[in-house]
């Protein structure tokens, strides 16, 4: 499935929607989106991933990059992740560095 990564800024939150399969081939695309969000002064990142079907270490590395690039105060939200997305994140010990939720709730996420 073709990978897609789109950005929408909303009240300082970078809403990045990922769909398809995020592997070593498509990771660079994800990385550019993160850089774009940083360029727009995002205070927070929300990854909207109900349609994300696959993630490998390449994608996880971009997450680490995102946090390191944008500074310590940036919270990363993972919204609507399926099991096969959460498992590698858990195995890598990255889960407790993220906030997770089933749906995007603007009232909690956008009060920066």
């Amino acid at each position: 499935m073709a990978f897609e990564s789109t950005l929408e800024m909303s009240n300082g939150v970078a809403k990045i929607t990922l769909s398809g399969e995020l592997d070593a081939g498509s990771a660079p695309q994800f990385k550019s989106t993160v850089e774009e969000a940083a360029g727009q002064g995002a205070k927070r990142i929300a990854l909207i991933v109900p349609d994300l079907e696959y993630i490998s270490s390449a994608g996880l590395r971009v997450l680490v990059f995102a946090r390191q690039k944008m500074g310590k105060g940036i919270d990363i939200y993972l919204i609507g992740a399926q099991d096969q997305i959460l498992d590698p994140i858990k195995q890598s010990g990255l889960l407790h560095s993220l906030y997770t939720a089933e749906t995007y709730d603007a009232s909690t996420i956008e009060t920066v």
Partner: protein
Amino acid sequence: MMPDIIRDPIIVQSGEDQLGSSLSAIRKYVVDSCKEAGFPKEVINRLRLAVDEIAANIMIHGYDEAGLQGEVKASAVIDDTMLTITLEDSAPFYDPRTRPAPKNLNDPLDLRETGGLGVYLALKNVDKFDYEYIDNKNINRFGVKRIHAENQKGNGVFKLLLRSRSETVDNLLREALPIAQYNLDVVTDDDALLQKLQHEVVDLILLDLCATDAPPLELLTTLQGNTQIQSPVIIVTDNFDIEPILQCIDKGANDFILLPHKSELLQLRIRANIERAALQQAKMKSLTQIEDRIKRIFTIDPAVDAHSPTLNIDAFLHHVLGEIKGMYNADAGTVYYREGSRLRFAVVQTDSLGVTLGGNSDQPITFAPLPLYDDDNVTPNTRNIAPYVALHGETINIPNIYTTTKFDFSATKVFDAENHYKSISCLAIPLKNHRNEVIGVIQLLNAQGPDGRIVTFDGAKQGITESLCAHVATILTNRLLVQQQMLMSKIEHDLDIGRQIQRTFLPTVFPKLDGWEVASYFQPAREVAGDFYDVFLMPSNCLGLVIADVCDKGVGAALFMSLMRSLLRAYAMQQYTEDWSVAFEPSRGGTSTQISPSTGSIALANAIHLTNQYVSTNHGDLNMFATTFFAVLDPITGSLQYINGGHCSPLILDKDGHVKAQLEPTGPAVGMFSDSNFEIAEAILEPGDSLFAFTDGVEDTRNPFGKRFKEDGINGLLQPAAPSIQHLLHRVRDRLENFKGDAVQFDDITMLGVRREL
């Protein structure tokens, strides 16, 4: 033994522009191979990730970064025990097993290094990984063990969480636990463990004792105290030092495992602990559900509030049946309520047929009650199960009514045939109260298992169900007693009203007439009598005198009496009559003569005729009537005009107490027939004369030997002459009392006397 399945391999190309499609193709190949091997979704995802990570490394680090271009071949073999995916490439030698795992797996994102993460994920998500370098080719083999159907946990895997800092322990466990069945997650410290458990539920927790200084007692205490965490805990150790193990078990650890451990035994121990914990939880849940049921039966709905005095028994039983059926997930149930020597059907409910009779529903029950005894009223009815339970007071559990020899279920089988139903398992429980009296029976049919199949009724719940039924029976008994008491109170209250009504109707104070004395005596047999008397002033200063005896007793008779009394009085006050001839009929008996119409006789005629007509017409279906003597006395002349409607003859006595006349009946009892004829007769009370009237209760009084007073008679009491009529009445009363002794008084005793003074 199945032959190996060798799938056709695929070959993909390296190169930056090929990266995406090549990896995608390899992933698809892995997924297809997994599906062919019958692996569940979780396993497919894990193997896919493992192979993809290594493939990506080969493409990027093996070829691209070395400035090379080449192929990667993926092949798959499925044998009895394993699926093996093999990746072959001709990039420079590289053994992934030499890559150290990332050191800081649990560090916060900012501090993480990502080197080695891909290989780590690959090795972690397979059961077996092999590497070989043959003929200048890197051979990476990924193996996932296949699981036989009966060992499969539904469609999923067991989730295990290991707290350990030792890679050795991690690897030992991983080798022993195939990923197709076990998902082993690892944390390195207590805090990480607790944090993980906040977000997810695992089937089992493993605590490594090997590489630690002290046993994790504090952690165990925390886990025990946290009611959200229900997972069993196994201590893992390589050192059979009993002391720390005992301490851990003391603090709540469920089991311990000595490593290294044969794979099959390790899996067995793990599964046994998981199953034990699951069973425990199911039991607790079941107990809580039963407690809730009990609460529901005895509190909530006010319509079926067991403590309400106006409890509707059938509605309450309906409610109880619903809850008890629910406890066993039974399809059908009947509640029988004992009435005398029979079991009445109170509620019948069959869910699968959509039938509800009795209880709260408006569908009546058409089945005849079950007799507890055979026709001889002695032999117990042991043919049907419900009467048997009612008589013996014990619970009966039948696994299958079609194969049992114990009871006669022919009626049930007939019902089955007629309604396309199959009654199989049956449970009958007595409703036995605190006095060990069986006041009813609950019979359930067809308990259902979780999959809907019919099962035997669970014997483990029998104790609780019997207690529940005993409680229901006791409550019902108490409510019934209260209801009876309330009913009695109501009846007494009504009787009291009747008594009060009567008292106001029966005068004890009489109009004062110069030269005349009036007296009465009234002793009802029961609370409310059928006798009455009346004395009232009529127009033109005549005195109306009535004595009567209603044909019945009790509340109905008393009400009838008050009706008659009111009618007589009202009509007596009427001045005119429509039929003058009534007043001129020749009379019978005594010293009466043909009379001429006068106001008194008109009133008399009116009173009796109209009352008679009214009662027989309007209350004819009650068949109530009263023997009635009604006299009108002219106090100036002493003339007594009277109608005697079937009443025992009053006496006229002279001043010495001799009987001058007996005033015989002049017509039938009042209220019998609307066309009855009543004649007026006349008598005279000379100075010194008395009129003595009474009801048949006097003559019918019996002594303890059954002899009637009449035979001795009043006659002996009339002389010597009493100084007053009151005196005479008392004399008769005393004599009656003596005569009666302690025998029961069956009839009301009423006497009315009038005396003309000398």
